[in-house]
C-alpha cells in the first residue's frame, strides 16, 4: 500500500511550505508545490482530505465529479519525496517570520496505524458508533470515496465511544489498532504558509421564515447535492425526505442568508449559488425526470464566469428551467402532505402569488467559522470586515503578513475554477520564499527495479472498478469479472471497487506480486486521465509500465450508454476482450527522455504577462516577454482606478520598471510571433520584431499566453456618434483627467450589458457591473448632486463587490432593470442625448435627458490574435474566441497542449486583480514543468527492423518531422529522441519494417481479434 511519509522520516532539513486545509484549493497548492519539487506539508483537521467539493454531486459544465482528474498528474515518486500529508492535524502556534517560520502542529490521535489499516471495514462492522469513517450513510458526511478525498484511506476511531478496546483489537485483522495513541505535537521549520481552510456553508435553520431544519422537504443546496449523490443517503435517488417519493415540483430560493441586511444575513454575495442552483436544476431534469418542474427564485442571476451565461441560456432554453425574479419572504408547510407553499411577488404584474412545491432548496452561501478567526489570530493575519482574509489589493493571495498566502473561499467567496487559480497562485507565491527553482537538485528514483518478463507466458490479471455507481450502477461488475476470468491467459479477475483508490491500488499491487502476473488490464475510466496512475502502480509492483492496458468502461461505455444497461454490458464484454487480447501482445518498453529547456516564453506584455514574467524570473527562469505594441502595459494602462480606490497608474509603472530592469527577462516589444515548433519542454518559436521585422527564434520549455482582450466598442446606443456617449473606459479617464467636466453634469445614465449577453456575444463581460458602480461612486464623490441612473439586466457584483453596490444604492444611485427584449432606446436631438427605458416596476416608459451616457461595453476577445496563435500553437478556443483551457473547472490555467498556460483576459474577461492572480497561477503551473530537468517522450516511438527495410525512402519522405534517414548500413534509422510517435511511417512502410512501439500491428490485430472473438 502506498503510504505518505510521516514527518518522523522526513529527513530533509530543507525548508517546506505548510499548506493548511486539504480542500481542492489546498490539494492543488500542495500538488503544484510538490510537482515543482518543493517540499510541502499538507495538514487538515479532518481524518481525510477533500473538503467541500467532495460533497458535491456533479459540477459544471460536464456535470460529473471530476475531482479524481486532479490526481494523476503527480507521479507517485514525486508524491513520496515531496508531499507530506498530515490528517487530523492543526496549527497550534506560529512564530518567526517569512522564510523562517516555526510552526507547531498538533495531530490528534487516530488510534489506527495508517500503514497497517486496509480499510477492510471490520471495525466499522462491529463498532459502528466508534468509527469515524462512515461511508454512505450520514448524508452530511464527506463520503465520496474517490481519490483524494479518501486519502489517507484508513479508518479513524473515536476512542471515547469505545467500551471494549480489546474486542476492537481482536476484530482488526490488520493489527492496526493503537489503543494508546496520543496527541502528537511537533515543531517544524517552514518558509511560507498557504492558508486554504475554505469556509462553512451557512446554516439557514437560524432563519425562522424558511423552515429549514423544521420542514423535512426544505433542504440546503448542499443537502440536495447529497441526496442526488450516488454515495448519498438515498444511493443517488432523488426523493423527498418526508415520504421518499420523487418530487415533481422543486424550487430553489437564492441568496438565503446572503446579500441581506437582516440579523442573520451577510451583506456579500457568495458568488457560487446561482451556478449551483442552475446545475442542480439541470441535473434534476437530466438524471431523474424531464417532467420535474424546476423553478429558481432569484434576485440577480449572477452567471458572470467564463461561458456561464451559455450555461444559463441552456438551463432556460434547453431544459426549460423557470426563473422568477423575486425574493420570497417565507415558506409554509402543509402539515399533512408536507408540501410547501411559497408566496412571491410577480415583478411584471406587481402582485403577489402563492404556489405549491414538493421540495424547496435553499441556496446558501459561505460563512467564515469562528475556528478560522482563531486560526487567523494565531497566524497573525488580518481579516476584512466580513472575516475573510484581508489581502493585497493587487494580489489577492497575499495577506497582511509576509510569507502567509491564502487561496480559495477563505480569501473571498468563489467557485472551484477561481479557487484552483488562486491555489496555484498561492503555491507560486509561497515557493518564492524558497530557494529558486533553478537551483534545486534532481530527485532520485524510488521505484523498485523492473522484473524481466521476457520468456514468460502471459499471465494476465484483470481488475474491474465499479467507480461508485458510475460503472457498477449501469453494468453488473460481477458478470464482467466472470467473463474476463474465462479468457485465455487470465489468471486473476476481480472487482476492486474504486480502482483508483489507494486500497484498491494496493490490492492490485499485491495481486501482481503474489500471482506473479506479468500483464494487467484495468477496467475503469479513460486512460487519458488514469493511465499514468496505473503505470506508476505497475512500476511499484516491479513491472514495466507498458504492460498495463486500461479499458475505458466508464467514459466510453457506462456514461454514454447509461440508459441501455444491456447494450452497455455487451459492449463492456467486447471492450474487455479488446483489452485482454491487446495486453497479451504488449512488451516492456523504455521511455525516451530529452533535456528540458528551462526558458519561458510569455506572450503579451500587459499586467498579466508582466506579472507572470516577473514571478518566473524571480525563480531564476530566463523569460522572453513578447509584446506587439511598442511599450509594455496593455489594456490596464488605460485604467485609472480600481473599485477599491487604488491608483492603477503607479502600480503599472512600478511593474514595468521591475520587468524592464530584471536581468532574467528579455523584453521584446514590437514583436510578432510567426512560427512555432517543438514539443512541450523544447519549444522553438519564431518572432519578428522591430520596425524592420527582424526574425529570431526563441528556445523555451513553457509558454504563457497573456495576450489579453480588447475593449468592446460595439455599434450600439449611438456610441461614436456623439461625444456625450462614451464607454466606461472613456468615463474612467474623464473622471480622473477632467473632474470639472464631470462637475458640470447634472444627470448621468449608464447602460449595462452593451454588446454582451447578446446573441452575437452571448457571454457576460464580468467586469462591467463593478466598473459602472466604480465610476458612479467616483462621480458621486466629485459631486453628490449628480443624478445617476444605471440601466441593467442583472447586477453582478459578486463577492465583496456587493458592498459597493449597496453603497451606490445608499448614495441614491438609481438602478433600473430592463430585459433583452425591451432594451433602452437612445435619441440624439438638438445635440442632447435622451434615453428611454420601460420601467418594469412603474410599468411605463421613462425618459432621461443625460449629460453623459456611459455604456458598459466590457471586453471582447481579440479574435484575430487568438485565431492566429491558436493555429500556430494548435490550441483550442471558445466560441467567442477566448482561449479554451484544458479543464474549465480543475485546470483553468493549463492548456490542452502541455507546456502552455493561460492567464488574464485572453482566458475570459476579468478584473486586474483577477488577472494578476491568474498570472501568478500560470507562473506556478509553469514551474511544475520547469522544475524538471528532462522531458519524458514516452516509449511510443517508431522502430525500424533493418532486416526487413528495403530502404525505399517512403518513411523518409512521409515523416511530418523529417526524422528518418537511411543510415550507413543502408536501412532507415529513426532517432528515438526525435521521433514524435505519430506512426505515419509505420503505416506507410511497404516492407512492414517499421513498428510504432506500444501500438504495434500485432497489438492492433490482437485487439481486433479480441473484439471479434478470434482468440478468447
Amino acid at each position, binding site marked *: 500500500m502506498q503510504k505518505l511519509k510521516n514527518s518522523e522520516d522526513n529527513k530533509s532539513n530543507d525548508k517546506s511550505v505548510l499548506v493548511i486545509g486539504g480542500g481542492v484549493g489546498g490539494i492543488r497548492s500542495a500538488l503544484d508545490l510538490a510537482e515543482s519539487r518543493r517540499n510541502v506539508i499538507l495538514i487538515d483537521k479532518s481524518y481525510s482530505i477533500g473538503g467541500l467539493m467532495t460533497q458535491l454531486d456533479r459540477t459544471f459544465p460536464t456535470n460529473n465529479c471530476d475531482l479524481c482528474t486532479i490526481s494523476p498528474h503527480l507521479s507517485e515518486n514525486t508524491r513520496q519525496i515531496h508531499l507530506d500529508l498530515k490528517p487530523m492535524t492543526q496549527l497550534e502556534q506560529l512564530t518567526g517570520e517569512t522564510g523562517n517560520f516555526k510552526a507547531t502542529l498538533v495531530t490528534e490521535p487516530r488510534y489506527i496505524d495508517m500503514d497497517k489499516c486496509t480499510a477492510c471495514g471490520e471495525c466499522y462492522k462491529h463498532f459502528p458508533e466508534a468509527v469515524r469513517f462512515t461511508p454512505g450513510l450520514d448524508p452530511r458526511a464527506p463520503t465520496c470515496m474517490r481519490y483524494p478525498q479518501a486519502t489517507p484511506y484508513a479508518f479513524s476511531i473515536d476512542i471515547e465511544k469505545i467500551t471494549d478496546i480489546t474486542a476492537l483489537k481482536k476484530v482488526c485483522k490488520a493489527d492496526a489498532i493503537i489503543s494508546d495513541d496520543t496527541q502528537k505535537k511537533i515543531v517544524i521549520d517552514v518558509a511560507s504558509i498557504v492558508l486554504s481552510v475554505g469556509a462553512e456553508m451557512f446554516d439557514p435553520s437560524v432563519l425562522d421564515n424558511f423552515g429549514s431544519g423544521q420542514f423535512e422537504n426544505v433542504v440546503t443546496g448542499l443537502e440536495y447535492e447529497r441526496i442526488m449523490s450516488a454515495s448519498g443517503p438515498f444511493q443517488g435517488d432523488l426523493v423527498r425526505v418526508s415520504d421518499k417519493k420523487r418530487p415533481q415540483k422543486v424550487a430553489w430560493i437564492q441568496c438565503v442568508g446572503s446579500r441581506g441586511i437582516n440579523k442573520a444575513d451577510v451583506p456579500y454575495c457568495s458568488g457560487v449559488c446561482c451556478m449551483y442552483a442552475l446545475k442542480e436544476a439541470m441535473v434534476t431534469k437530466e438524471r431523474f425526470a424531464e417532467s420535474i418542474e424546476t423553478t429558481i427564485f432569484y434576485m440577480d442571476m449572477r452567471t458572470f464566469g467564463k461561458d456561464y451565461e451559455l450555461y444559463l441560456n441552456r438551463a432556460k432554453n434547453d431544459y426549460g428551467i423557470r426563473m422568477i425574479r423575486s425574493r420570497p419572504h417565507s415558506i409554509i408547510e402543509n402539515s399533512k402532505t408536507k408540501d410547501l407553499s411559497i408566496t412571491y411577488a410577480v415583478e411584471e404584474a406587481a402582485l403577489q402569488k402563492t404556489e405549491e412545491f414538493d421540495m424547496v432548496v435553499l441556496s446558501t452561501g459561505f460563512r467564515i467559522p469562528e475556528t478560522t478567526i482563531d486560526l487567523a489570530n494565531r497566524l497573525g493575519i488580518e481579516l476584512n470586515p466580513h472575516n475573510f482574509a484581508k489581502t493585497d489589493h493587487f494580489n489577492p493571495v497575499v495577506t497582511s503578513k509576509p510569507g502567509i498566502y491564502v487561496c480559495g473561499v477563505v480569501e473571498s467567496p468563489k467557485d472551484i475554477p477561481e479557487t484552483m487559480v488562486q491555489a496555484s497562485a498561492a503555491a507560486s507565491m509561497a515557493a518564492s520564499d524558497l530557494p529558486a527553482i533553478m537551483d534545486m537538485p534532481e530527485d532520485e528514483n524510488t521505484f523498485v527495479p523492473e522484473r524481466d518478463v521476457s520468456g514468460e507466458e502471459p499471465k494476465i490479471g484483470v481488475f474491474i472498478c465499479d467507480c461508485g455507481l458510475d460503472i457498477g450502477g449501469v453494468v453488473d461488475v460481477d458478470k464482467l469479472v466472470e467473463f474476463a476470468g474465462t479468457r485465455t491467459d487470465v489468471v486473476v479477475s476481480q472487482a476492486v471497487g474504486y480502482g483508483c483508490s489507494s486500497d484498491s491500488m494496493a490490492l492490485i499491487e499485491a495481486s501482481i506480486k503474489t500471482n506473479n502476473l506479468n500483464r494487467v488490464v484495468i477496467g475503469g475510466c479513460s486512460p487519458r486521465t488514469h493511465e499514468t496512475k496505473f503505470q506508476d502502480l505497475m512500476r511499484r509492483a516491479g513491472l514495466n509500465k507498458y504492460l498495463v492496458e486500461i479499458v475505458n468502461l466508464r467514459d466510453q461505455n457506462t456514461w454514454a450508454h447509461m440508459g441501455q444497461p444491456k447494450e452497455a454490458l455487451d459492449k463492456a464484454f467486447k471492450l474487455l476482450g479488446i483489452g485482454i487480447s491487446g495486453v497479451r501482445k504488449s512488451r516492456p518498453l523504455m521511455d525516451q527522455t530529452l533535456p528540458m529547456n528551462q526558458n519561458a516564453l510569455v506572450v503579451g506584455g500587459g499586467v498579466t504577462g508582466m506579472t507572470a514574467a516577473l514571478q518566473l524570473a524571480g525563480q531564476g527562469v530566463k523569460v522572453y516577454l513578447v509584446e506587439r505594441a511598442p511599450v509594455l502595459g496593455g489594456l490596464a494602462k488605460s485604467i485609472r482606478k480600481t473599485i477599491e480606490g487604488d491608483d492603477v497608474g503607479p502600480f503599472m509603472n512600478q511593474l514595468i520598471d521591475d520587468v524592464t530592469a530584471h536581468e532574467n527577462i528579455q523584453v521584446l516589444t514590437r514583436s510578432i510571433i510567426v512560427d512555432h515548433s517543438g514539443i512541450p519542454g523544447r519549444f522553438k518559436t519564431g518572432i519578428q520584431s522591430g520596425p524592420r521585422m527582424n526574425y529570431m527564434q526563441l528556445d523555451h520549455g513553457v509558454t504563457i499566453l497573456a495576450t489579453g482582450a480588447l475593449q468592446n466598442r460595439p455599434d450600439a446606443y449611438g456610441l461614436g456618434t456623439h461625444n456625450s456617449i462614451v464607454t466606461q473606459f472613456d468615463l474612467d479617464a474623464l473622471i480622473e483627467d477632467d473632474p470639472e467636466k464631470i462637475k458640470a453634469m447634472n444627470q448621468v445614465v449608464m447602460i449595462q450589458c452593451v454588446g454582451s449577453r447578446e446573441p452575437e456575444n452571448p457571454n457576460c463581460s464580468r467586469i462591467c457591473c463593478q466598473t459602472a458602480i466604480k465610476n458612479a461612486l467616483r462621480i458621486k464623490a466629485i459631486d453628490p448632486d449628480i443624478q445617476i441612473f444605471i440601466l441593467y439586466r442583472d447586477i453582478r457584483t459578486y463577492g465583496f463587490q456587493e458592498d459597493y453596490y449597496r453603497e451606490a444604492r445608499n448614495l441614491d444611485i438609481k438602478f433600473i432593470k430592463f430585459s433583452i427584449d425591451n432594451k433602452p432606446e437612445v435619441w440624439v436631438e438638438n445635440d442632447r442625448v435622451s434615453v428611454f427605458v420601460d420601467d418594469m416596476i412603474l410599468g411605463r416608459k421613462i425618459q432621461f435627458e443625460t449629460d453623459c451616457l456611459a455604456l458598459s461595453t466590457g471586453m471582447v476577445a481579440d479574435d484575430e490574435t487568438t485565431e492566429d496563435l491558436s493555429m500556430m500553437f494548435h490550441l483550442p478556443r471558445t466560441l467567442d474566441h477566448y482561449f479554451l483551457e484544458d479543464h474549465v473547472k480543475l485546470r483553468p490555467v493549463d492548456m490542452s497542449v502541455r507546456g502552455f498556460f493561460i492567464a488574464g483576459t485572453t482566458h475570459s474577461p476579468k478584473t486586474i486583480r483577477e488577472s494578476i492572480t491568474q498570472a501568478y497561477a500560470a507562473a506556478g503551473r509553469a514551474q511544475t514543468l520547469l522544475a524538471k530537468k528532462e522531458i519524458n517522450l514516452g516509449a511510443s516511438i517508431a522502430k525500424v527492423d533493418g532486416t526487413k527495410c*528495403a530502404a525505399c525512402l*517512403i518513411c523518409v*519522405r512521409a515523416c511530418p518531422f523529417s526524422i528518418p534517414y537511411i543510415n550507413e548500413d543502408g536501412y532507415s534509422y529513426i532517432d528515438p529522441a526525435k521521433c514524435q510517435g505519430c506512426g505515419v511511417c509505420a503505416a506507410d512502410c511497404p*516492407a512492414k519494417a517499421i513498428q510504432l512501439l506500444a501500438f504495434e500491428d500485432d497489438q492492433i490485430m490482437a485487439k481486433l481479434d479480441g473484439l471479434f472473438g478470434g482468440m478468447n
Partner: protein
Amino acid sequence: MITAEQKPLNEIIAYISPYDRILLVGCNECVTVCSAGGRKEVGLLASALNLHFLKQGRTIDIKEMTLERQCDPEYVEELVSEIDRADAILSMACGCGVQTIAERYKEKPVFPAVNTKFMGASESQGVWVERCKGCGDCMLGITGGICPVARCSKHLLNGPCGGTSNGMCEISPDVECAWCLIWERLKALGMENRYEEIMEAKDWRPAGGGGPRKIIREDLSL
C-alpha cells in the same frame, strides 16, 4: 527500379478461383519500393481476397510470404517448405520474379498479381515516372542526361517534333517535352552545339530487337 502496379482484383480473383490454397508471395526489392508488392501490399491483397471469397461463402487458405528477391533462385528456394501446401502461387513480384518462380516450381501454376510497368524513378512520394527503356546503347552522355528514347513520346533522336507547346509534349500537358528538357540542359551546360549533330538511325538490336537479351560475365560465371 522496376515499377509495377497491382492488377485489377477481378483478374487476380479469376486466376486463383479454382484453387483453395494460395501461396501469396511478395518481393522485398523494387515492388516494395514502389509499393506494389511488398509485405504491406501482400497483407492487403490477402485481406481483400479473403473478403471476396468469404463473401462467396468460400474459405480459401492464403499463406503470405515475402522474399528478399524473387528474381534470384536462391531466395525463391525459400518457398520450398510451403509449396506442397499450396495449390497455386500468386506472385506480387515483377515479371522476372514470376518467371523465376514458374521455372523453379514447374508443377504449380503461378499467377502474376501485379502488372510490371517500366523502369522508373520516383519523382516524389507516391509518384513514379519512366526514365529508361533499357535500349542497351545509352546515349544520355550526349543528350544532357535526359533520355529521348524513354521520355520522348515518339522516341525522336534529333529534336522535338512540331507538337511541343510551352515545353510540354503534344500528347498531354502533363508530360514534359523531353527535347525541351534536353535543350535547356544543353544550354545550361554550354553544349548547345551538341544539338546540331545529327544522330544517326539507332541500332535497336541491343534494345531487344535482336531477341531476348542476356549478359554473360565470363569472369563471374562458374
